[in-house]
Each structure stands twice: as C-alpha cells, then as structure tokens.
C-alpha cells in the first residue's frame, strides 16, 4: 500500500514516520508551490476555500508519484473542512484516477480497519504504540525547532543562517527512524541553534501575534512565506497561535495540555461566540484577547477568502481590538493575492507599530521616525 496525505507545513515529517512505522509505504508529494495551487484550481469548485485547492493539487501530485491510497481527515463539522476528503476524492475519481480513500473520522472505524488490515496485520496494537511514540517525538522536535527559529530570525547577525541550519536539521529529522535517533537529534538541534550568533541590541524587536485559519498560518506556500519574511526581512518576532504539533496531537489525545489550552480558549471566547463554529475561531478570538497582556505589539489575522469561521471572527475582531487597544491587520488570501500587495500592507502596519511603540516610550519626533524638515513644506 502506497499511502499519501496532503501537505501542511512541516506536518509531513511526523506523518511520514507514522505511515512508515505502521507498515505502509508513504508517498510524500513535493512541497506545495504556485504550480500545485494552479493544478488544484483547475478542478476545484470556484469558491471553495484556498486550502481545498492546494490540498487537491497535493493529491494530484501524490497520485502522479504512484500513490494508491489517499488519507484525509474528515468529520461532521459546521466547517467545510470535514467534507474535503469526500469531495476531493470524488473529483479525482471523475478525473480517472483509481485509488483507495481512507477518511479518518468520516467512515466507521471498522471500515478503516478493514482497509488497513492487509498492511498493518496482526500485532497492530504494539505497532501502533511504537509508531505513535515516534510520531509524537518527531512532532515535538519539529515544534521546538520551529519555535526557536521564530525567535532567532529577527536576532541573528547573518540573515538566513538559522533558516539554513534548521532546514538541514529538519531533513535529518525526517530521515531518523527510531525514537532514540529522534531524541538525539532534538538535543543536537537545541545545541546547534543555541550557537547561532545573535545581535547585541534586541530591544527594538517588535512582537506580533499571528491568528487565523490553521492552514494559512502553517503552510508557507499559501501565506506567501509570511512567518519567515516577518522574521528575516522585517526583523519581527512572530508567534502563531496554532502549530502543526498542536493540531496533530490535540485531536489524537496525545498531549493533554493542549486540551486544557483549548478549553481555556473556548472559555475566553464565550462572551463573543457562545457556540462552536467548527473551525479555530476560539484560538483566533482568545489569541487576540490576550495579545496585549502577553506583550505583543500587534495582531495579524490571516485567513483564506470565504472561510466561514474566520469571516465571522473578522466581523468581531475590530471591536475586540478597539476594546483591548491592540492594532490589527487582516490579510485575506486567495489565489490572486500578490506578494507585493501583502508586503505593502505589512510595511504600513509595521511602520504604525514602530511609531506607536516610540510614542509610548516618549521618543516621538526623534530618531528614525522624525519627519525630515524638507518633507514638511515642499512648496516653500
């Protein structure tokens, strides 16, 4: 069985090992890029959200690489993500591809077991326990590298050094096959990243919280590499409220702390949204509510066009941000979003945050943001 799954940021690293350790052969499509999106666009419904189109392109790439089984998460939620698998696989079958589909959550567990039995076979509980522990360790290692990377990017002396280092480490992590190797690599990564040379003067680094739709936050191909660019080019420390680790492990009940975090977020969100909408709206609203208190200078809300839960958050966020006195930038992504448009908005937003911070510290009118004399009255 050659099993494939769509990409989402670095989720492929733990997922590949999970599939491999269960006894199937994982097929990982190429990292998504513009071409993947355009391939998905050709066959996707017109106003389905952007993740649908990218993951459809991923499935096409995987099938071309020889996959014979496509796995997807599915469920009966109010958000349309629950129907991705069903509709995508229908589209792919209409295109003439033949494959088996495994929809976790959308089918009865007995059906899924029947499909997986020939591969996993007897001794499944033991195999599954081993596979899940490697999966968890890899996910945690990826999470640590990513978190450290977001701190290092604005601070490093040689721009891009930590990124190069991290991509090397992640590649090795992807190749590691036992729990011991993963643990060793995690320690090694910690040491290697600690040795990256940092600037002395780091007080001026702004902190921005990133909230919004899961896939847009995590997939660099979709958010035009927002997280890396904010860190390396704009020298800003970014903290997304969601991560691959949180998403993968929370639903599998592999880390109870994440459940506690989700319950707390729901409680914070309740005055604004008392009912569950099926997406990550609780993380968006609670992340914005706590941003100021946790020392962030601003909030960026990123979501794909027509995303239902995030659109509702988009209606609520301006009021929340006014109440909590925190600046907000909403970025809506679709297949026509241009990198230049996003950069312009980011530049303007960051200028605003800088001058806001300077005026808070009582430095307005001096330093870099003083208005040049010539610019005040050009007609004189």
């Amino acid at each position: 069985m050659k099993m494939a799954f769509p990409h989402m940021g670095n989720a492929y690293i733990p997922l590949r090992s999970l599939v491999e350790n269960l006894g199937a052969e994982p097929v990982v499509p190429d990292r998504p890029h513009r071409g993947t999106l355009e391939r998905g666009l050709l066959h996707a419904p017109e106003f389905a959200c952007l993740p649908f189109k990218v993951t459809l392109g991923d499935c096409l790439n995987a099938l071309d690489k020889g996959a014979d089984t496509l796995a997807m998460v599915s469920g009966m939620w109010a958000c349309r993500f629950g129907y991705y698998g069903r509709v995508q696989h229908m589209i792919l079958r209409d295109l003439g591809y033949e494959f088996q589909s495994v929809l976790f959550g959308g089918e009865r567990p007995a059906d899924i077991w029947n499909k997986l039995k020939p591969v996993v076979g007897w001794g499944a509980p033991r195999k599954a326990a081993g596979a899940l522990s490697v999966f968890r360790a890899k996910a945690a290692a990826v999470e640590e590298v990513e978190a450290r990377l977001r701190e290092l990017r604005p601070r490093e002396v040689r721009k891009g050094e930590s990124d190069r280092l991290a991509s090397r480490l992640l590649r090795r992590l992807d190749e590691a096959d036992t729990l011991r190797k993963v643990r060793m690599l995690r320690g090694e990564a910690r040491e290697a990243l600690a040795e990256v040379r940092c600037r002395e003067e780091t007080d001026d680094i702004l902190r921005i919280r990133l909230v919004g739709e899961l896939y847009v936050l995590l997939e660099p191909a979709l958010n035009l590499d927002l997280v890396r660019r904010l860190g390396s080019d704009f020298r800003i420390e970014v903290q997304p409220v969601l991560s691959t680790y949180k998403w993968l492990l929370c639903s599998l009940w592999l880390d109870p702390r994440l459940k506690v975090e989700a319950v707390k977020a729901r409680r914070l969100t309740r005055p604004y949204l008392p009912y569950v909408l099926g997406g990550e709206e609780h993380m968006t609203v609670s992340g914005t509510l706590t941003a100021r208190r946790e020392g962030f200078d601003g909030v960026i809300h990123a979501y794909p066009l027509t995303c239902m839960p995030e659109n509702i958050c988009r209606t609520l966020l301006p009021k929340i941000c006014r109440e909590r006195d925190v600046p907000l930038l909403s970025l809506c992504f679709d297949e026509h979003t241009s990198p230049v448009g996003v950069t312009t908005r980011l530049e303007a937003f960051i200028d605003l945050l800088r001058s806001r911070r300077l005026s808070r510290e009582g430095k307005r009118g001096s330093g870099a943001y003083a208005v040049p004399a010539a610019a005040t009255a050009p007609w004189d």
Partner: protein
Amino acid sequence: MGDRADSVDSAEGKRDSRLRVGVPRALAFYRHYPFWRAFLEGCGCEVIASPPTDMGIMRAGTEACVDDICVAVKALFGHAAWLAEAGVDAVLVPRMVSVEKKPYDTFTCPKLIAAPDMIRHGMPGSPEILEFVVDAKRRPWWWGCLSLGRRLGASPCRIWSAWKHGVDEQGRYEGMLRTGMMPDDALRRLEGGVEEPPAYLGQGRVAVGLVAHHYLLGDPLVNNRIVRWLHAAGARVVGSSKFTWCEIEEEADALPPLSWSYEKELLGSVARFMRSGEVDGVVYMTSFGCGPDSMIMEMVRRELRPRWKLPLLEIVLDEHSAEAGIRTRAEAFVDRLPARSVN
C-alpha cells in the same frame, strides 16, 4: 410595518406600552416568520418586520459588513440597520444552531449560528438583540421559545398559547409553500389581500425546479427576479421550498450523510426534482462565498447529475449581479429545454 417615515414617527409620538420588536427580513425570516410573528404578538409585543430588501438596505448592509461574506448576511446587516433607525426596542435575531436530531452532529451554516454575535459585535450602533436559540441537537426546540418568552416577561401559560398559535400560523404558511410558490409570495398571501395563485405556478411550455435557500428564493432583489424571468421565457417555476422534511429525508437517506441540515435539504430537493420527473430542468441558485454550497454544488454536479442527466443551470449571486445577466441566462436555459424532450 409601513414605510420608514411612519415607523420613525410612531417611535417618537404615539408610542404605546408594548415592546416594539423588529424582525429583519433576512436569513431564517423566510422560513419561520409566521411563527415568530404569532409567538411575539402572543407574548405581548408589537412586531415590526423590515420592508422587502431595496437598494438602500443592501447598500447599508454592504457598508456595515465585512467584504467577503455572503450576500444574505450583508442583507441581514442592512435590515438590522433599518430597524435600528426605525427605533425599535429590540431586534429578534434567531440563532439556528441545529435543526434536526440525528445520531451524528447536525448544524446549519456557521453564519446562522453566529448571526446574533455578528450583529452585536460587528455592527456600529447595533440595537438591543433578542436571541432565539434553536439547538435541536441538545435541547428540545420549545426550550428556545420558553427562554425567549420569559425574557419578554410573559407567563408560562401565555407562552404556551402563543406557541400554539405560532405553530398553527406556521402550518398555514408551510401549507402554502407546499404548492411550490416562493416564500415571499406565500408571506404576502398569508397577510391577506392577494388570493389568486402566482402566475408562475400556472401553465408553461416547460417546468423548471428552482433550488436555493429560502432566503434567496424569497428575496427578489438578491435573486434579481429570476422567477419572473424564467416565467417570462415560458417556464412554469416550482420552488424547492415545497418539499417536506419527510420527502427530503427519503432522498437524503440514499446519499452519504451531511451535517448541514439546510444543505441536505437542497441536495435532497435536487434529487427529488430529478428523480420524480416533474420538471424538465433544475436551476441551482447560490450566493457567492456560501461555504456549504461550494461543496454541495460539487456533489450535485458529480453525484446527482450523472445519474439522471437532467439539464442543470448554476447561478451564483452576489450584491453586484445584474438583472440583465440573470435574465439572459434564464432565457437561454429555458430555450434549450425542449430539445431534451424531443430526444
């Protein structure tokens, strides 16, 4: 009721002691208004429905709302703004969380679930909001009526009789919908005055099934009077609002389960229209940016259409769609229908 100036006058001048409750003519209005009206009046309120959507309301809604949400929510914002301006004491915004009890989770659209929150937190100068929660999955649906009635200060006995009256009115309304007329026409006939059935239900060269949410079928400004254009081109038009839940369930049981109840209704209606052979073609109408419909349309296209090979026209509406465009497409669709019956 009445026009804007009248309502504002009565708010300032001859104000009686009853609570004036506004009902925005959007979203679930076209499904449940007769019930709400009877229920609210039974609880001792004066009910003021906003007028049918016009350009002014639509413009106000578009300005007050975020850009990439569906046209129906923008209309809701416009109607709520109209009611706020008309000086009502409170606006009834129902929260339809789930409308059927099933072994699996059921929902309506997230925008219907969060409609009161969006108005409360997202609209500048939002009026006082009366919530009416329908969460059939977790609570029986009279629970919402009871808590709304208590909030209005009515006694349980009064709530009970108001509820019974509401159910009767709703029954009359749904009986009218069964004939296939559009929700707005049924509401007009319920108010009295008009007796004869609408022209589009009469004779036609062909029959067309119009499938859409109630709030699109019933809003001639949003759907650009598509019913009229289909009829003018020579078709008898039947709305998808005519099917009962039993009929829908019957069709939906043959399809994989869906957690969106209203979308299951659309899917079931298309299947029913196609299977029964009562129509020669189906027009599927949706609003741009409708989340569930983007998936359902694909299911209609790929699961239902190949089975029955009935002509299908898909129309996507937003606040910019123009009557001429809709008319051209309606005419072209009706014109090519007879070709099929010859084969």
